C-alpha cells in the first residue's frame, strides 16, 4: 500500500471509529456489552474496500487500518449485505452461500454484532444534555406524533396519502416546462419592445 492510499484508509478508519463510538455513546449499556469483548480484535473486510481492525476496550472501540498480529475473528463480506447482516435470521443463509466469510472465533463476531444490534439509543437523554430537558422532551414528543400521524394516515387511508404525494409531485415544475415558459416570456418581451418602437415611430 502506498503512503497516499494508507493516508486515505487512515481517514476512513477515523470516520468509522468516530461514528461507531458516537452511536454507542447513545446507549448507557454499551460499556457493559463492550466489557464482554475487552481486548478482542475483529477484522472486517467489506470487499472491495480495505480491511479495518476493530480493537475493543471498555472505554471505546479503536479502529486501525493495520494490525500485525492475528485478529480473534475475521469477517469478509460485500457492503451490499450490511442490511441483511442486521437480521440475525439471514446470517446462517449468508454463511451457507459463502457471501459472508468468517474465520476465527464466531462467538466474538456475534458479540461484536450485538454491540450495535442490541443498542437502545437514549436520544432524548443526549438532546437534553445539549438543549435542556424541556426542549428535548418537546422535540422528541413532536417527532413521535408526526411519525404516528404519517403511519396512521398510511394505514387508514393509503389512497389519501398517495393522492397527497401525487399532488405534491404535480406542484413540482419539470425542467422542460420551465424552459418553454422562459422562451414564451422572451418572445413576449421582444414583441413588446418592437411594439414600443412602432408606437414611437407613429408618434414622431
Amino acid at each position, binding site marked *: 500500500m502506498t503512503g497516499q492510499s494508507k493516508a486515505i484508509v487512515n481517514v476512513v478508519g477515523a470516520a468509522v471509529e468516530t461514528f461507531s463510538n458516537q452511536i454507542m455513546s447513545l446507549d448507557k449499556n454499551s460499556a457493559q456489552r463492550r466489557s464482554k469483548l475487552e481486548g478482542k480484535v475483529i477484522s472486517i473486510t467489506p470487499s472491495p474496500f480495505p480491511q479495518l481492525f476493530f480493537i475493543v476496550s471498555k472505554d471505546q472501540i479503536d479502529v*486501525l487500518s493495520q*494490525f*500485525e498480529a492475528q485478529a480473534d475473528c475475521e469477517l469478509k463480506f460485500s457492503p451490499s449485505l450490511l442490511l441483511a447482516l442486521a437480521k440475525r435470521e439471514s446470517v446462517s443463509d449468508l454463511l451457507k452461500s459463502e457471501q459472508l466469510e468468517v474465520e476465527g472465533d464466531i462467538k466474538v463476531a456475534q458479540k461484536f454484532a450485538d454491540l450495535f444490534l442490541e443498542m437502545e439509543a437514549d436520544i432524548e437523554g443526549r438532546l437534553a444534555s445539549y438543549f435542556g430537558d424541556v426542549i428535548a422532551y418537546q422535540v422528541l414528543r413532536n417527532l413521535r406524533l408526526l411519525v404516528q400521524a404519517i403511519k396512521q394516515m398510511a394505514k387508514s387511508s393509503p389512497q389519501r396519502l398517495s393522492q397527497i404525494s401525487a399532488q405534491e409531485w404535480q406542484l413540482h415544475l419539470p425542467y422542460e416546462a420551465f424552459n418553454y415558459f422562459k422562451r414564451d416570456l422572451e418572445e413576449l418581451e421582444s414583441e413588446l419592445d418592437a411594439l414600443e418602437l412602432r408606437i414611437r415611430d407613429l408618434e414622431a
Partner: protein
Amino acid sequence: MSLDQETTHFGFKTIEKQQKVAKVAEVFHSVAAKYDVMNDLMSGGVHRLWKRFAIDCSGIRPGQKVLDLAGGTGDLTAKFSRITGEKGEVVLADINDSMLKVGRAKLRDRGIAGNVSYVQANAEALPFPDNHFDLITIGFGLRNVTDKDQALRSMFRVLKPGGRLLVLEFSKPSSEFLSKAYDTYSFQILPKLGELVANDSESYQYLAESIRMHPDQDTLQQMMNDAGFEGTQYYNLTGGIVALHRGYKF
C-alpha cells in the same frame, strides 16, 4: 571542543547548548495549559489524523511495551494504552513537568490508568534499561531536543531487537507553492493566533522557527541510519508539512 559543538539553534537564534533545555522548557511551561486547543486550531484538527497514521504504522499489539517520548498531553498514550491492554505497558515521558502534569490529568479524567506510567525524562539520556521497549514514538518532540543524534542513539539503546522507532515531526513541504503558503501561515498567522488564544506570540514564533531549522526528511532518515536503525523509511503527510519516519532495531 569547537564553537560549533558548544552552540545550537533555538528557533533562528544560535545559543549555547546548555541554555536550550531551559529555553524550550520556558516555551512549554507557557503553552501547556492551552496546548490541545492550540493544536486543534493551528492544524484545523489534522494533527489527529497525523497521530492516527503513526499509530497505524506502529504495529502495536496487546501486551507490548511502548515509550511515548515527548508525549505531552498524551494523545498517543491514550490509544496505546487501550490497544496494549492490561498486560501491556505504556510510559508517557516528557522533559517538561508542566506538559506531563497536563497529560496525566487529562488521561486520568478519561479513565486511562493501570498500564500507564509517567516519567520526566530527557530524550538524550533515557532512564530505562537496554532492550526494554517494543515501540518508541516521539511526536512533535525531536526538533526541541538539543542533541538529536544523542537522543536517537539513546532511543536505539532502550529499544528491543525487532522493535521500531516512529518519529512524527514537522518537515519540509514537497511543493514550492505549498512551501510559500505554509511560510506565510507560519510567520504571519500562527504568532497572531498564539497571541489571541494563548496570550503568547513568542512561543508560536519559536514553533515556526524551530520547524524551519529541523532537518528535512532525507537528513533525518540518514541521522536514524547513523544511530543504528535499519529499514528506515518515511511517509510525507499533508504534502510534507509533516513526515513520519520509521526505523527498526535488528
